[in-house]
C-alpha cells in the first residue's frame, strides 16, 4: 500500500480508536435520544458541516431484515442536525437493483424521515469524479466515485450487522461498496468482484474512508447474508470514530475473530485498529452483548473459540 494516501496510517502511529456499544432491544425505543447522547460523547467536528449518512439499502425489504432500519437512519439524521450540522444527507447506491425508489418505498424511509427531496442522493446516478487508487490493493488503477461522497465534510457509514457469503461479514467497510456508482459499473458492480472483493474493500475505503460508523445490530442477519440469510437479533447499536475498530468490535459481538476476516485483518495494518488494546471501549462491554452469529461452512475459521 502507498503511504502517500492520507487515509493510510500505520497502526503503530494511529491514536487509539473509540467504539461505543449501546443495548437497544427494539426499533420502537427512543432511538433519537439514545443516538444523540451517544454521538455527543464523541464530540464530533460536525457543527456547520455537510454530512452524508451512507446506510446499507441492498434490496426490497419490507420485513426490515437486510437493510439498515429507517428508524435508525432517521434518528441519526436528527441527531447530527441537533449537534449543529448544516445539512445531513442520506445516500446509497444499491448493488443489485437499480430501482432505488422501489427500495426506499419498501423500507418506508419517508415515513421516518419525512420528505427528503435533494437530501437523498441515489449514489448510483450521481455525477462522478475520477479517483486514482493509490493503495493498489487491487489491480484497479482508478474508480469513478460520486461527487456527493467526495464533497461532503463528514461521511458516516451505517451498515446492518450481517454475515456475508463471500466476504465473511458485511459491516461499515463492506458497506462502502455502495458508493461505487452502478451507472458506471453496473448492477451488481461486478468489476469489484473480479478485482477481488476483499481487496476492493481496502481500495474503496482508502479512497473514501468513513469518518464515523454506526452499525444497526438491533436486528441483524446470520448465515447466507447479505440478502438470503436468517434474521438474528443482537439488540445493539455500535458507534465509533474508526470504521475498522467498529467492524472489529462488531465481529467480536458476533462471536467472530476480526483478524481472520481477510479484508479486516489487512485494514488493521493501515486503515484503523483491529487489536483490542488499541480500541477504547465505551458503553457496554463486548461480553455482555455477545450474540454468536452462524456463518457458512466456508467461514468456519472466523468463529471464535
Amino acid at each position, binding site marked *: 500500500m502507498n503511504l502517500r494516501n492520507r487515509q493510510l496510517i500505520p497502526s503503530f502511529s494511529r491514536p487509539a480508536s473509540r467504539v461505543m456499544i449501546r443495548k437497544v432491544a427494539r426499533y420502537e425505543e427512543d432511538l433519537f435520544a439514545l443516538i444523540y447522547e451517544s454521538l455527543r460523547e464523541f464530540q464530533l467536528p460536525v457543527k456547520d458541516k455537510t454530512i452524508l449518512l451512507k446506510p446499507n439499502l441492498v434490496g426490497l425489504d419490507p420485513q426490515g431484515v437486510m437493510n439498515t432500519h429507517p428508524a435508525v437512519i432517521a434518528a441519526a439524521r436528527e441527531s447530527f442536525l441537533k449537534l449543529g450540522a448544516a445539512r445531513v444527507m442520506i445516500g446509497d447506491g444499491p448493488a443489485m437493483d437499480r*430501482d432505488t425508489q422501489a427500495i426506499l*418505498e419498501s423500507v418506508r424511509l419517508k415515513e421516518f424521515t419525512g420528505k427528503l427531496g435533494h437530501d437523498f442522493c441515489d449514489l448510483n446516478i450521481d455525477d*462522478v469524479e475520477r479517483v486514482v487508487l493509490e493503495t493498489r490493493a487491487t489491480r484497479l488503477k482508478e474508480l469513478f466515485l460520486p461527487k456527493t461522497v467526495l464533497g461532503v465534510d463528514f461521511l458516516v457509514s451505517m451498515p446492518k450487522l450481517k454475515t456475508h457469503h463471500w466476504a465473511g461479514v458485511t459491516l461499515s467497510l463492506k458497506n462502502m461498496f455502495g458508493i461505487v456508482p452502478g451507472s458506471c459499473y453496473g448492477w451488481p458492480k461486478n468489476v469489484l468482484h473480479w478485482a477481488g472483493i476483499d481487496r476492493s474493500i481496502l481500495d474503496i475505503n482508502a479512497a473514501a474512508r468513513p469518518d464515523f460508523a454506526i452499525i444497526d445490530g438491533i436486528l441483524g442477519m446470520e448465515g447466507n447474508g447479505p440478502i*438470503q440469510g436468517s434474521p438474528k437479533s443482537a439488540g445493539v447499536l455500535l458507534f465509533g470514530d474508526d470504521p475498522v475498530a467498529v467492524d472489529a468490535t462488531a465481529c467480536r459481538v458476533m462471536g467472530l475473530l476480526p483478524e481472520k476476516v481477510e479484508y479486516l485483518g489487512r485494514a488493521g495494518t493501515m486503515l484503523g485498529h483491529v487489536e483490542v488494546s488499541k480500541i477504547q471501549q465505551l458503553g457496554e462491554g463486548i461480553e455482555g452483548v455477545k450474540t454468536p452469529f452462524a456463518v457458512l461452512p466456508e467461514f468456519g475459521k472466523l468463529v471464535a473459540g
Partner: protein
Amino acid sequence: MNAPEMPDPLPPAESTEEQRIECLSLLASLQNADGGWGFRAGGQSRVEPTCWAALALFQSSQPKNNDTYRKLQEFLHARQLPDGSWPTGPAGPEMSGGGWVTSLACCALAGSAESDQQLRAGLQWICEDFPRDSSPWQRFIRKLRPESHISSQSDSYRGWGWTPKTSSWVEPTSFALMALRESSREKLLKCASQRRESGISLLYDRMCPGGGWNCGNPRVYGVDGDALVLPTCWALLALRDAPEKPGRALSLAWLQRAFAKIESPGSLAVAEMTLEIYGTQAPVARRSLQDWSAEEIAENGTHVIAWVCMALDAQRSWPGVKQQIIAGAAR
C-alpha cells in the same frame, strides 16, 4: 453535489396525454449545452441518459430533423470510443473502455442514416465483446475450485457484461439482444446470430425458479433468488421474438403478479410497456403513473422520466409496439 433545486412539483396530471406532454417537455428541457443529458438536471452529460432521452423524444413517429436531435446525435458520435463502444462514465482521456451502454446507443441511433458508420462500429464491438466468466480458461479454472457448487447456472452460455472482461448478466445481455435484433442484417457480423442464440440461452438459464429474473443469480448456496421487476421486463422484451419456452410464459405470469405491488414510477412504466407489448392485461396496481408529477418522476433520474414518456406514448416504436390484449396470455 446534488442537482439544482427544481420548481415545486405541480399537482399530478389529470390525463395520460397531459402527463405525457409535461414529461416530454421537462425531458427536452434537461438537455445540456453539449447535446447530452445528465441523470439529473444540470448533471454531467452521460451516454446512458442521453440514449434514454433520444429513445423517448424521438420515437419513429416523431421528426428527427430538429436542433435537439442534431445536438444529441453529435454528442453520441463524439462520445464513441475508437473501438466502436461507448463509455458508461463521463468524458475524459482516462475513460478508455466502453460498456453495456453501447447496446443502448445502438438502439438510440438505429434508423439514423447519419449514424450508419457509428452504428456499424458499435454493433461490431457488441459482437466481439465476450464476457470473461465463460471463457474456456475460466470454465476450466472453475471446475478445479471447491466453491463451484455455489451457483447452479451453466457457464457454457455467453451473454454480455456491464463492463468488459467481467461476467454475463441479465440486463446487459437483454440490451445487447435488443440492439442486435433492431439492426438490419447487413450491418451485423456473421457471428451475430450465434451470439444471439447463446445470449437467449443464457437468459433462460438465469431465470429464477418461480419465473422472472434478477440481475442473474437465480440460485445461490441452494437458495432460490427473488426476481425483480426491471431485469424481468428487459429480459422479456429481449425474448419477445425468441422461440417460445415455458419459462417465458412463467415469467410473464410472475410480472403480472408483481405488477400489482409496484410502487415506483420507473418499474411501473417499464412493466406497463412489457405487458402491453406482450398483449397481456395489466392488473390493477397499487400505484398509477398519474400519481406522480413530471418533476417528481424526474427526481428518480432522466432514465425514469424517459421510461414514463415511452410508457405513455401510444404510438411508440421502442421498445416495441402495443399488442392487442390476449385474455389469459400469461397463463
